[in-house]
């Protein structure tokens, strides 16, 4: 029985009258890449914001590494790293400066932050560009710095919210390899994306959300097997069958 590192129990979150998340429960095993998929407005980002302590749930709780988010939010923050969908970087500063700053915010000493920053920049292939200002970087380079920042402080659980949006195949491949390498080292990862082939390649298990609820949760192979021979069915087929073909806002 794999160890459950993150356990979300009956999460609810409403904004005014709109129920963004409506009774979400799932567990992420230690060392796995857990995909959270869903159309726009399904509640993925709200769920991630609750899991990463940014939003407080209206109801329910999350336990990460044995710590309750409601009661021990600070302890939870010591365990997580977040790579948001936006390029959450100070564009006027250099890549290295961004990493060092967020490292300090993660509780590292100045020396530790500098050492980790260099290591992580090397991991995403930017060791030579540490002094370059972020606003001079290409989209792919910014995405890689965005990921490297999330690794500062060596988190045990990493939230990756669409980390490969709008970048070239080379940068995307670098990010895939980085993520797979992190999993191999035992890091637990929650991954959201709209690219189904990406989820199929990276994720050990996938939850599909729609209307604020989880409507399916299994391995990519088992999800595909629900609608046909897994070798002939794509994850996109499963996704469209479960969430429908109607356009979302």
């Amino acid at each position, binding site marked *: 029985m794999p160890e459950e590192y993150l356990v979300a129990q009956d999460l609810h979150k409403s*904004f005014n009258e709109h129920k963004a998340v409506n009774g979400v429960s799932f567990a992420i095993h230690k060392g796995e890449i857990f995909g959270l998929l869903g159309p726009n407005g399904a509640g993925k980002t709200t769920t991630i*914001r609750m899991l*990463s*302590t*940014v*939003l*407080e749930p209206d109801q329910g709780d999350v336990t990460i590494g044995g710590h309750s988010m409601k009661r021990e939010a*600070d302890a939870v*923050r*010591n365990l*997580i*790293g*977040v790579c*948001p*969908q*936006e*390029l*959450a*970087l*100070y*564009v*006027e*500063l250099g890549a290295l*400066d961004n990493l060092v*700053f*967020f490292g*300090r*915010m*993660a*509780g590292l000493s100045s020396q530790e932050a500098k050492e980790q920053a260099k290591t992580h920049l090397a991991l995403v292939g930017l060791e030579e560009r540490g002094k370059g*200002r972020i606003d001079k970087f290409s989209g792919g380079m910014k995405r890689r710095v965005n990921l490297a*920042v999330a690794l500062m*402080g060596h988190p045990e659980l990493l939230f990756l919210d669409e980390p490969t949006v709008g970048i070239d195949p080379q940068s995307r491949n670098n990010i895939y390899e980085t993520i797979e390498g992190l999993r191999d080292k035992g890091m637990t990862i929650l991954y959201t994306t709209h690219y189904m082939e990406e989820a199929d390649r990276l994720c050990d298990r996938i939850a599909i959300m729609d209307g604020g609820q989880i409507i399916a949760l299994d391995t990519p192979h088992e999800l595909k097997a629900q609608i046909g021979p897994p070798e002939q069915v794509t994850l996109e087929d499963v996704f469209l069958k479960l969430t429908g073909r109607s356009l979302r806002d």
Partner: protein
Amino acid sequence: MVRALQIALLQVRIYLQDKGDLAFSLLLPIVTFALIYGAFGGQTQFHATAHIVNEDSGGTYSKILLEQLDALDELDVELLSLTEADRKLERADLLMVIVIPEDFSDGLVSGEQVQLLFKQRGNAGQEGQIVRALVQSVADDISLGLQVQEQVIAALVDGNTTIHQIETTVERLLDEERENPTVAVAEEAIGSSPDAVNQFLPGIITMYVLFAIMLTARTLVEERQLGTLERLLTTRLSVGQLFAGKFLAGISRGFIQTVILMVLSYAVFQIFTPLSFVSALLVALVFTGAASALGLVLASAVRTPDQATWAGVFITMAMVMISGTFFPIEEGSVMEILSRISINTYANDAFTTLIAEGGSMADLGLEMGVLAGVIVIGLLLSRYLFKAMPGGR
């Protein structure tokens, strides 16, 4: 506290990285100072121009009057034609014109009463009234000289003394009297002088400090839009540390501009003593803190940079307007009660006490207490609002 300092340092670094922003914000107080210098000429004495229509052209005494007016340090003389003067008065280009009538010299020689005509709009303004008093004084002096001369001639002309000798002697004695008047005037300076620079500088300084409201108000919104705010909230940084950092950053930026302006004023206008300069810096620091705390209140309430900018501009303008920074407020009026809402009022009073009235920190208990109170309440309120607003923590 270390993380709060790191947040503040980050903001300062970003500020220093943006060369355009940096140049603009550092140049702004220098340009403002240059404008003050240009407006007040770096001089602390009254100076104005007397606009005169001389219809007694060629007359001896109109010439003497013009020469004596021109010799005054306080006045420049500009001659106009009557048509030109009337047109300028009509358009309110001028508030007062002095007309020397055609019969001015002849009238004085023949001992008749002559009249200088002051054509003016309304009460001619403060400057006009001073010019009028100066002109009146010179004209009285000429008139008095002539009267003395006539009376002496009347008393002595039947003797052996010639009229020329009498005129020369009277003129010499009057000149001596002017140089060594029987009733002399001495000056004893109490505090520094309430000249134009002293009057306006406190208002200009406080207005600069108030920019901190808008700059601080934008800071959280901009981070929210960038996504860095949310990222920061997932780290070990507490909201209290975040706010403390933003508060310190707001102070440092607003304070730098204020210090530039004050140092230039100190160096050029010599309106400070070393002690009053240090005191004024302390007031500026506390006032910048109050402005930053109010900026944080706005930052916690608004959701877009535009909202932050306009809310900041509105509050800044309202504070400047109701505080009577650039126009006097009557004591006991409703405006005076309203002005107590504005932090600008307290800062302005504090700067005026230090700069124009020669006061010290001991005289600023109320002002410093209110500004410190605004800092505490502002920080607490901003923290509460940040938690209470949708998506807050």
